[in-house]
């Protein structure tokens, strides 16, 4: 089921005018910020489909930048997000794309600074609910509504068992899990949605596993 909670339907509380184009966009931006983990120096945003056609009218531009500034859907600062980003010296670039995507409300966000860059694709599926469909070239489905761990690791036996052991030790229950890779034996990505917030200690333990390259946690 795409929608699990009654508050997906009666909610979110948000700044208008559109749940998909404003609240959903803010959420996609905020997941990008969470994944990047710090204030970026630049944000390059591409809009597809209905996003591309109507982003100005719906405030999709201010909302997505608001999310990148770590604002929630009901944060009234969203309205001034573009000028606030300027104040924080974040370079913003927006592009309207013509390409046809699977979902009409699609945005691609690239966040970066001198230390690194992330690229993600998010879709706004209605009523403010979003999914992250792609991260750094990996296909994934992430609702952004549960705490999640994204683990970049070597595509080798024992990787899943190693991570699962650490989670079990800390009594963390896995709600949803997916593993994908670009090529056999190369870099792979493990996506684990869990029921409760995870502590930094656990992240460090997973990071210490020889097979693991990087761990990003996204908390609720």
């Amino acid at each position, binding site marked *: 089921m795409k929608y699990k909670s009654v508050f997906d339907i009666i909610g979110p509380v948000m700044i*208008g005018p559109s749940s998909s184009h404003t609240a959903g966009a803010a959420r996609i931006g905020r997941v990008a910020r969470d994944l990047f983990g710090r204030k970026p120096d630049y944000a390059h945003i591409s809009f597809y489909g209905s996003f591309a056609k109507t982003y100005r009218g719906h405030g999709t531009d201010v909302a997505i930048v608001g999310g990148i500034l770590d604002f929630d859907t009901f944060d009234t600062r969203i309205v001034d997000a573009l000028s606030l980003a300027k104040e924080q010296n974040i370079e913003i670039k927006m592009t309207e794309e013509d390409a046809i995507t699977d979902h009409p409300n699609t945005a691609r966000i690239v966040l970066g600074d001198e230390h690194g860059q992330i690229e993600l694709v998010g879709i706004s599926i*209605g009523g403010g609910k979003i999914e992250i469909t792609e991260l750094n070239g990996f296909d994934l489905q992430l609702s952004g509504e549960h705490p999640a761990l994204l683990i970049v690791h070597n595509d080798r036996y024992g990787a899943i068992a190693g991570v699962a052991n650490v989670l079990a030790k800390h009594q963390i229950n896995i709600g949803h899990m997916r593993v994908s890779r670009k090529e056999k034996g190369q870099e792979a990505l493990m996506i684990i949605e869990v029921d409760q917030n995870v502590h930094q200690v656990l992240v460090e333990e997973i990071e210490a596993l020889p097979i693991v390259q990087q761990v990003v946690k996204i908390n609720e």
Partner: protein
Amino acid sequence: MFRNVAELVELAEAKNCKISDIMIEQEMEITGRTKDEIISQMDRNLKVMEEAVERGITQDVKSHSGLTGGDALLLQNYMKSGKSLSGEFMLDAVSKAIATNEVNAAMGTICATPTAGSAGVVPGVLFALKEKLNPTREQMVAFLFASGAFGFVVANNASISGAAGGCQAEVGSATGMAAAAVVELAGGTPSQSAEAMAIALKNMLGLVCDPVAGLVEVPCVKRNAMGASNAIVAADMALAGIKSRIPCDEVIDAMYKIGQTMPTALKETAQGGLAATPTARELEAKIFGIALNKK
């Protein structure tokens, strides 16, 4: 867990409880949160709705584009003249639906029900009922759970996105949700709620999403107004014992399929319908400061 309206009604009848109770129970089961936590979150959402309605019917709220605002206030003043044809209760619901969407268009704070573009119908009807039936705060919160239960089915089995299914998926869904919840608050049975939802949604089928200049303003605000009135009439029909010949779940399924076959120009792209009229194009050019020949 219920997957469709038939199962929802069956659960409520088997347990001899209300639709809203089933929704609360399911929320507890899925999230592991307590009943108190869930109810107080819904109470906070109710408060946001109340503030938006209050702001819209007392202040001259204007959107940035200037396309919408002030109509809720006009209607409230007209009601006081005592000349209204459709009656004070009906116009109260309509004006409060407009109020919410005017606040939404002005980038004010609202609660999506199920979306922001369709945020007026459910609270509009609820806050008019508040004057008419004097419900307790608890009953008003229950109204939101009941409408949420029906919206939950639509969202999972069809769509609540204008970009995916047209306005029928947004204002249409909201209208059905509100109709079903009115029935519960007015003392009807769970199956009467389902009939009301079916009757209301049937009359919203095919409704396209064609926002002028891509803004959630024209015709969205007035579609919420008509949705609120539609919901009340559908609820009255169901309470009178009228049944929908097509079961509620099949109506929802029909809505989904209509949405799939609807052309992209009519699904929130501002390329067809009212958005493509000469006046709409002029307004669009004026709002965004672009020359018409560039479009």
